[in-house]
C-alpha cells in the first residue's frame, strides 16, 4: 500500500468581517485542484488560526480579510507561527488589502497577496508551485 502526498491548506478568516464568498470560492477551487482544505469558519483569532495550522500540520495557510484590520492581525499571526516553530508553512493572503500595505506584509513573511478579481487558477498555480516540499 502506497500513501500519497497531498497538499494540506488552511483557509482562515481572521477579523470580524463576514465576507466569506472569496474564501469559500478559493477553498472550493483548491479542493477541486486535489488539495485537502481545512476551513476555519469566520472570526478566528490569530491564536486559533496558528493552533489549527499546527494540529492539522498544513503546508499552506491562506488568510482572507476584508475588514481592513489586516495590519493589526497579520503581524500577530506571523509572530505566533514563528513562536510555534511553523516557519516552513507558506502563508498567502487575499481580500481588500491596499497595494501600499503589501511590502510590509511581505516583509513580515507573507509570501503573496492576491487582490480582488484574482482568478482562482492563479492561486492554484501559485500554491502548487510554492507549497513547501516537505517529507
Amino acid at each position, binding site marked *: 500500500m502506497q500513501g500519497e502526498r497531498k497538499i494540506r491548506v488552511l483557509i482562515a478568516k481572521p477579523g*470580524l468581517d463576514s465576507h466569506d464568498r472569496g474564501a469559500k470560492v478559493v477553498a472550493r477551487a483548491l479542493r477541486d485542484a486535489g488539495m485537502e482544505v481545512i476551513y476555519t*469558519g469566520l472570526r478566528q483569532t490569530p491564536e486559533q488560526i496558528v493552533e489549527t495550522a499546527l494540529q492539522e500540520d498544513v503546508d499552506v495557510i491562506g488568510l482572507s480579510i476584508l475588514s481592513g484590520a489586516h495590519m493589526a492581525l497579520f503581524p500577530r499571526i506571523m509572530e505566533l507561527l514563528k513562536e510555534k516553530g511553523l516557519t516552513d508553512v507558506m502563508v498567502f493572503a487575499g481580500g481588500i488589502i491596499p497595494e501600499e500595505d503589501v511590502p510590509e506584509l511581505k516583509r513580515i513573511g507573507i509570501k503573496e497577496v492576491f487582490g480582488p*478579481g484574482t*482568478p482562482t487558477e492563479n492561486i492554484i498555480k501559485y500554491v502548487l508551485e510554492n507549497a513547501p516540499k516537505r517529507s
Partner: protein
Amino acid sequence: MFDRQKIEEIAKEKKRWEQTTLTNWVKQCPERRKEFRNHSGITIKGLYTPEDIKNLDYMRDLGFPGEYPFTRGLHATMYRGRLWTMRMFAGFGTAEDTNKRFKYLLSEGETGLSTAFDYPTIMGYDSDHPMAKGEVGVCGVAISSLQDMEILFDGIPLDKVTTSMTINGPASILLAMYVAVGDKQGVPREKLGGTTQNDNLKEFFAQKLCIFPPKPSLKLSTDVIEYCARHLPKWNPISISGYHIREAGATALQELAFTLYDGIAYVEETLKRGLKVDEFAPRLSFFFASHNDFFEEIAKFRAARRLWARIMKERFHAKNPRSMWMRMHVQTSGCTLTAQQPLNNIVRTTIQALAAVLGGTQSLHTNSFDEALCLPTEESVRVALRTQQIIAYESGAANTVDPLAGAYYIEDLTNKMEEKAMEYIQKIDDMGGAIAAIEKGFFQKEIADSAYRYQREIEAKDRIIVGVNDYTIEDEECPVKLLRVDPNVEKKQVERLQKLKRERDSRKVKEVLEKLHYAAEKDENLMPTIIEAVKAYVTLGEITEVLRKVYGEYKELIII
C-alpha cells in the same frame, strides 16, 4: 393584451421571418454565442414579440400605479411627484467623525441618513472587547453606548431627518439608543422616522453576522416589529434584505425568492404575537441589490412588488393596500466593483442605479468607485451621489411612471422571475419554512453553488468583466487616494468607553442587567427593558453578553 387572431398572425409572420430574413442574416453573420442567458439562468431569446406576453392580462398583472398589484409602482405619480430618497450609507471612525460626514452629506443635498456600524458593534462587542482589536471604527462607526449615539446625532434634529441603521443582531439596542436620543431632544416617539435593518434570518445564509441561534434571532427581530407597530408608527422596524443574499453570490432569482420567503417568515412570526396583519405589514420594508444585467434587474424589482402584493393578499389576507406595498431600498452591487481600473465602476454604478430607478425603488444608495479598494473618500462619495442626481435631473428616466412597462422582453422576464420565485417559495414551504431551510443548509448550498458557478464562468471567459478578464492594463497604477482610518480612533474610543464605565451609576447598571436577564428568560418583548438599559448607559456589549448567556451563540453551518 392582444386578441387571439392578432397573436396568431404575428406568430405566423414571425415564423416566416425566422425562415427567411433571420436565417439569411445568420448565415452571413452568426450570433456571438450559442446561447444567451442572464445571471438567473433564464435563456434570453434573440427577439421578443407580443406572442411572448400573450397571456398577460393588463388589469390582473400590471394595473395602475398606486394600485394592486403594484407592478407599475407604489405611487400614482412616482418620481413626477417626489424623487426617490438619495440615501448614502456612511460611517467610520468615532461618532464625531461620522457626525461630521452626516452633516456634510446633508449639506450636499442628501435627504436621509444611513448608518454603517463597525464590526464590533455589529457583532455586539464593545470597542474594548478583545475581539474588537484592529476593527474599531474601521468599516463603520463605533457605537458602544448611548454616549456615542448622542455624539453621532449631535446637532441633527431627529424629527427633520430619517435615519436608516444597518444593524441586525443588536438592532433592538441601537433602536433603543435612537429612541433615547430622540427623547433627550424632545422629539415625540411617533415622529421618529427611519429604518433598522433588523433582518436576522438572512444573516444565517448571506451576511453571516450572526450572534444568536436562528430561533432567538427571529424572536429579537419580531420584538422590534411588534414594538414599532405599537409605539413607533413612523419607524420601519425591518428591512428584509436581499442585498446580502445577492452579494454572497446568489442569482437575481434566488435573491428575489429567498428575500420574499424571509418576509413570509417575519409575517408569520409577528402574527403569533397577536397583531393583525394590517397592523404591522404596512411598515415592513425591503432592500435589494442592483447588478449589471440591466433588464434582469428591472424585471426583478417589478416582479418583487407584484409577488409581495399577491402574497400579502392571498396568503395573509391583508385588507389594507398598504400592507401589500413592497417599499424598497436599493443599493448598487458592491461585488460587481473591480479593483482593476476603478473608474470603470462609475459606469457600472450608473447602469445599476438606472435599473433601480426604472424598477421603481423608493430609495437608493450608489456605491463609490473606490470601494473594491478601501472605504470611499469624500470625493468618490460625491461622484456616487452625483450619479443619482444626473439620473434624476438629466436622464429623463424620472419623468414618467414605469417607462418600460409593456416592453415584450421586460414583461416576459417579469413573469418568468415571478413564476420561478414562486417555485422556490413552494419548495421552501415543503421543507418546513425558513428556519428549517437554514438548518438544512438549503439557502447556503444554493448560494455557494451560484457563487462558484459565477467565478468559473469568469475564469473560463464565458463571462467578461471589463478590466478583469479582458481589456486589462498591465502594471496598473492605483489612481485613487485611499482613505485611512486614523489609528488613534480605537484608542480614543476605548478611553471614552472606559471613562463612561467608571463614571456611570453602577448599581443601576447591575439592576437593569438582571432585569434584562429575567425578561429574556421569560420570553418577554425586550424592547422596553433595553430602552431602560441604554438610558442607564449600559453598553451594547453588556446587553449582548446577557442575551448570549440566555440564548447561546450561533455556530455557523459551513456549506462550501
